[in-house]
């Protein structure tokens, strides 16, 4: 009890919880902002190329859901940019000049994305089919570049670069080196793949439920197959990428890596722990594969892996068990998604048709939840694993947090509001889909969404 009270009394905890929940919420919507347009455009391309009405209808409906999700994401993104200042004035006051560059570029790309979501929605019946298809391209490109910018800012906090300090004050900033710091290529690639996988598996999961309920028409088969293919092709790439990044972290942020893998002291023949809880320096309930961690890091059982004890306890991350289990969860779910994709791929290769048995569809229906959980676990690893630093080896979280009182209040309000926002972002698409099934075609045409045109009153 004493320990709990102590943790609650430490100032950064409410602020970290608020930042974590806001970020954890926003990142899901950000995935759809990044990847939904590309998946929609594949459906549209099939629709135009083959004159496939089902594919075109999917694309039109998806574009409306995309608009709702981008609109929610715009608000949760606004919240985040406020919170950067409200919760972490110590960070922004010292390093805002360095962090600001990537964020400013993200602003441009989001602006562009929002505008072209509007163009895409307005353009459905106001542009020729191919002109309309091309009008979706800026959404895809700005989604990718926007993600690159924001993740570059986060990477900078892991691998600060491109700045000169004198007397603890920032005197020189090189925005290009800030943007392309050592972590940028790894983190951005990992996140972009994750965004496409989350989006693909979530949409596929929705149509898997429809297929399980017996709606097996071409519309539902395509609605499942297009996003599942996109996510499935990327799943093995993500597994490879994850392996490369783990090795990078072992060199770049060895203490984070030690927490991820339960490397308590610097050692050769470091075992790979699967599961397990760390209590007082001992791992319970875990399975250890001897020397495998050393092999993963250096392709050799005798590779030395740096342990938690390489830094004093004050510089070790808290909640090591949480970091390790989140890492295991992410890897496990990634493997599950990879296996699911491989299964469908194998079937398609030999039978040239979709595998649509219940044995396959039930786990597929859950694949969206799994992908989201894996991504959230990954963010827990990278953010909690960097503790107690907010900027690695440069600024402590406790020096960055606001001295203002009242963060516990805003934390409560944010949690309540985000519960509402979650209901909206899941509920609105559900209501829309129910209406699509129930309403007459004319009513569907009159549906109004953010960014979209006002309903046409008279038939043209």
């Amino acid at each position, binding site marked *: 009890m004493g320990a709990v009270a102590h943790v609650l009394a430490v100032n950064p905890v409410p602020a970290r919880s608020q930042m974590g929940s806001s970020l954890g919420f926003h990142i899901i919507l950000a995935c759809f902002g990044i990847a939904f347009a590309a998946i929609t455009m594949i459906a549209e391309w099939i629709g135009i190329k083959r004159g496939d009405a089902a594919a075109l209808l999917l694309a039109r409906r998806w574009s409306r859901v995309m608009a709702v999700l981008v609109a929610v994401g715009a*608000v949760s993104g606004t919240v985040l940019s406020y919170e950067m*200042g409200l919760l972490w*004035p110590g960070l922004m006051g010292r*390093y805002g000049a360095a962090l600001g*560059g990537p964020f400013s570029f993200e602003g441009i790309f989001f*602006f562009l994305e929002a505008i072209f979501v509007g*163009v895409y929605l307005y353009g459905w019946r106001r542009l020729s089919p191919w002109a309309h298809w091309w009008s979706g391209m800026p959404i895809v490109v700005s989604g990718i570049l926007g993600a690159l910018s924001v993740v570059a800012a986060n990477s900078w906090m892991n691998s600060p670069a491109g700045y000169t300090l004198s007397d603890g004050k920032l005197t020189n900033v090189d925005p290009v080196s800030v943007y392309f710091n050592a972590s940028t290529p790894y983190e951005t690639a990992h996140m972009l793949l994750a965004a496409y996988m989350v989006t693909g598996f979530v949409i596929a999961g929705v149509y898997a439920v429809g297929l399980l309920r017996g709606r097996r028409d071409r519309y539902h088969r395509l609605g499942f197959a297009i996003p599942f293919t996109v996510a499935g092709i990327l799943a093995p790439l993500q597994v490879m990428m994850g392996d490369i990044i783990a090795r990078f972290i072992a060199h770049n942020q060895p203490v984070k890596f030690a927490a991820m893998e339960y490397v308590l002291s610097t050692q050769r023949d470091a075992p790979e722990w699967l599961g397990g809880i760390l209590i007082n320096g001992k791992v319970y309930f875990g399975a250890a594969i001897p020397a495998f961690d050393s092999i993963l890091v250096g392709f050799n059982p005798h590779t030395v892996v740096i342990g938690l004890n390489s830094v004093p306890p004050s510089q070790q991350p808290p909640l090591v068990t949480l970091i390790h289990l989140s890492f295991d969860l992410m890897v496990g779910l990634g493997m599950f998604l990879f296996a699911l994709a491989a299964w469908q791929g194998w079937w398609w290769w030999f039978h040239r048709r979709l595998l649509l048995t219940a044995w396959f569809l039930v786990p597929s229906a859950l694949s969206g939840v799994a992908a989201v959980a894996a991504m959230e676990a990954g963010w827990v690893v990278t953010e909690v694993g960097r503790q107690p630093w907010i900027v690695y080896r440069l600024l402590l979280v406790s020096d960055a947090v606001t001295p*203002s009182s009242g963060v516990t209040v805003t934390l409560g309000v944010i949690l309540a509001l985000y519960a509402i926002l979650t209901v909206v972002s899941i509920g609105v698409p559900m209501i829309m889909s129910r209406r699509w099934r129930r309403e007459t*075609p004319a009513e569907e045409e009159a549906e109004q969404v953010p960014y979209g045109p006002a309903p046409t009153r008279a038939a043209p």
Partner: protein
Amino acid sequence: MSPSPEAIAVGVILMVVIAAYALFGGADFGGGIWDLIAGGAERGAAPRELIDESITPVWEANHVWLVFILVLAWTAFPPAFAAIMTALFVPLSLSLLGIVLRWAGFAFRHTAERLQARRFTGAVFASASLITPFFLGTVVGAIVTGQVPVHPAGNVLAAWTSPTAILTGFLFVAACAYISAVFLVLEARQRGRQDLMRYFSLRATAAGVVTGALAGGTFAELSNSAPHVFDRLTGIALPLVAISIAAGIAVLAMLWLRWYHAVFLRATAAIAVATVVWGWGLAQYPYLLPTSLPLALGSAPTGSLVAEFVVAGLAVLVVAPGFALLYFLQQRRLLTAVESDADLRLAAHLDQALPGQPAAPAPAGARMTTALVMVMIAIRAIKEVFSPPHRG
């Protein structure tokens, strides 16, 4: 020590973005305010519908301006940003609450099916429109009066509850209502709604008079609470103040004469608001936080400032054509000869009548071989990756 030209230039960009938010975001908030006081469900139906139609296409794209303000402020003027965010934690959090509530109300309103739910979400949307401009106004009031310390130890309650700050809060609300009513007059005219033109013309006049009175009151209050800003407002920034007053009177005259010119009326009202913002910026110069943090001490290294130029240039180059295209499509009523959703639905449902998928072809020998080869290559590749590194 005088501020670098880069710092001044980024300051100018910041003031332009703030003016844009005051105009576009302000019109949005004002729409919510008029919605709030439009009366019962039946009486207020027509004006509400007009407000809704004119807000919907851009309703939260306008928050991008606010995000730009935040990002510009923390990149270019980090110490001032950190001080403001710490000292004014409470009003800033409340303004954020307003933004989120407005959004939730707006989103639900369009999907809520029952009238009662619609009414409730509508009320949330409308009252949240009051919160955000009011508290942002108190924030500006607190900054202008020099109540934000450079190194605050926590919330500074007194900073944003001074008479000047509260007056500024009311001024912001009134200005939002004013700019919005002027724009709504023109929206009504575009739709040929004579009754709504008169309705919003009357309200624009009233809001204009109230805004003018509040501006006068705030101005008088500043002579005590912010002598530096007041001196410059009556000195170097006086031309901007004069233009604002003249534009405000011109708008009232146009409304009185019912000369609802789409360009002139909009532009004059916009000038009236934008010049106040710029007047504030000019009057506060050379201080970020009057009179404790001058621009020269509070601005970022040159590299960061230059990056902001690039961003601003990119914004003009890329975002402007995008907006033009969107505007063109919005104005284009003519639909091309593409199938409607209804046609697509009919076509897609025809598919259901067709027999199921064709029978699967038997696994071909060639495909089996290829699959095996690919698996072998994959195993070989994995082995290659995990084998000990070669020396040499």
